[in-house]
């Protein structure tokens, strides 16, 4: 019996994981289905755009500028080992738009937005506000989840685009002021090197990450346990799940976009 205990434990963990995947997939299906059917809550959508997009700009911008600067220093220092210091503008640009812009932007939005959505909806659940919505003939998924998921899917790519530009500017600042690059040459090199698909792929990743962030926030909020502890747990789960899913999805999308 004791020999089988680890196997039983593994089985339980697998079933639990599969159950969670199924519930999240079902929830995502409900969100997508409600996205296509009226009524549409425009006011709630615009409010979510403001909360998720506009108010995330400072944190995404700060992350991008320091990442771009550090990237320039690292590439310069690493490139010096084989006399390739001149590739700094190119690698900073491609690194930002393909990977670091979307991934770091997505993770920062996950920390800020998934937690906030989960805490807000979780509190609504434990104070019976979600039950109240139902009794007022309003579908909670349509009213709470759809505007947030749609807003995040549409605004995170914009945040990524802004983050890309700020990150490249961070690299340029360090390149010109610390590493002795000529400003015009640095910028020209960046523009010449980047291709449209580099930028587009990053923006598509941003859309996927935005969808994941808001979906995880809404799902964990709506399935929150009772009381302050339940809401705290839901908030933590939302951020952890969103972050892990962003990194996993990033790998899958990179395989899809760049290896075929």
């Amino acid at each position, binding site marked *: 019996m004791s020999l089988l205990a680890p196997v039983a434990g593994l089985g339980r963990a697998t079933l639990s994981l599969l159950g969670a995947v199924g519930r999240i997939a079902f929830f995502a299906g409900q969100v997508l289905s409600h996205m296509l059917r009226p*009524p549409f*809550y425009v006011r709630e959508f615009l409010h979510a755009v403001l909360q998720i997009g506009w108010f995330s700009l400072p944190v995404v911008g700060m992350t991008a500028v320091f990442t771009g600067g550090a990237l320039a220093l690292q590439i310069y220092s690493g490139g010096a080992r084989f006399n390739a210091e001149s590739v700094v503008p190119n690698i900073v640009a491609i690194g930002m738009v393909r990977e670091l812009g979307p991934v770091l932007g997505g993770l920062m939005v996950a920390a800020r937005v998934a937690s906030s959505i989960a805490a807000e909806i979780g509190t*609504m659940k434990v*104070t*019976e*506000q979600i*039950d*109240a919505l*139902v*009794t*007022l*003939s*309003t579908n909670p998924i349509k009213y709470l989840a759809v505007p947030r998921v749609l807003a995040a899917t549409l605004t995170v790519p914009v945040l990524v685009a802004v983050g890309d530009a700020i990150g490249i500017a961070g690299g340029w600042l360090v390149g010109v002021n610390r590493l002795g690059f000529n400003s015009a040459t640095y910028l020209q090199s960046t523009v010449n090197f980047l291709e449209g698909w580099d930028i587009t792929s990053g923006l598509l990743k941003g859309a996927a990450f935005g969808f994941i962030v808001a979906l995880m926030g809404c799902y964990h909020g709506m399935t929150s346990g009772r009381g302050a502890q339940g809401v705290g747990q839901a908030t933590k789960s939302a951020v952890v799940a969103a972050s892990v899913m962003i990194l996993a999805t990033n790998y899958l999308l990179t395989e899809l976009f760049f290896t075929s």
Partner: protein
Amino acid sequence: MIALQDVTKSFGRNAVLRGVTLDIPTGQSMVIIGGSGTGKSVLLKCILGLVHPDGGMITLDGQDVTKAERDAFLGRFGMLFQGGALFDSMRVWENVAFRLLRGTQKRPKSEAREIAIEKLRRVGLTPDVAELYPAELSGGMQKRVGLARAIAAEPEIIFFDEPTTGLDPIMAGVINALIREIVTEMGATAMTITHDMSSVRAIADRVAMLHAGVIQWTGPAGEMDATSDPYVQQFIHGRAEGPIAAVR
């Protein structure tokens, strides 16, 4: 009429409702009494479809509630939640007029606001409260706003979940009197769940006692004090000794 026939509901191994059978006649005020944790709120949520019963049948005017068109069905109900359940991101008037600002009962914003202010006045609140947020109100005022929201769309059936919990005796009396007045004036069917005996005496036409997952006793409010049912007697007199275990 709302009719419950042998309704059961369990949460894991905890069988909360074990075969509830109860009729709530149209236009009457039914109060369900029972100790904490006996499933009163679950029963109410089963009727509204917020909780799905495991067995039995619930009908409204003869129609199975699980087969009713959801929006039309819920449109007949108003509900006052125990904690108010006001949307804290909205102003008071937007809470009251929530149903009137969207969905099938949607009307122009100015008209919805006027109705909200009139309903606030009906529950004893002045129009200046309309622009406040729920967090700026006292518990008693939040209950009144919740009551105004419950009656805003003139429902046929109103549910009250522990309407006086957390209120001082004077405010509880005010809320009880308001509920009685409103139910009588609207001619609505009301179902209240409470363990506050002052509420029962103020609100009820009929009383049902829920204990151990079944309706232990039901009858007109006037017969409650005279009944020989030991469960009812222990409950209404608040005795520690009797068939209901004091520690559950």
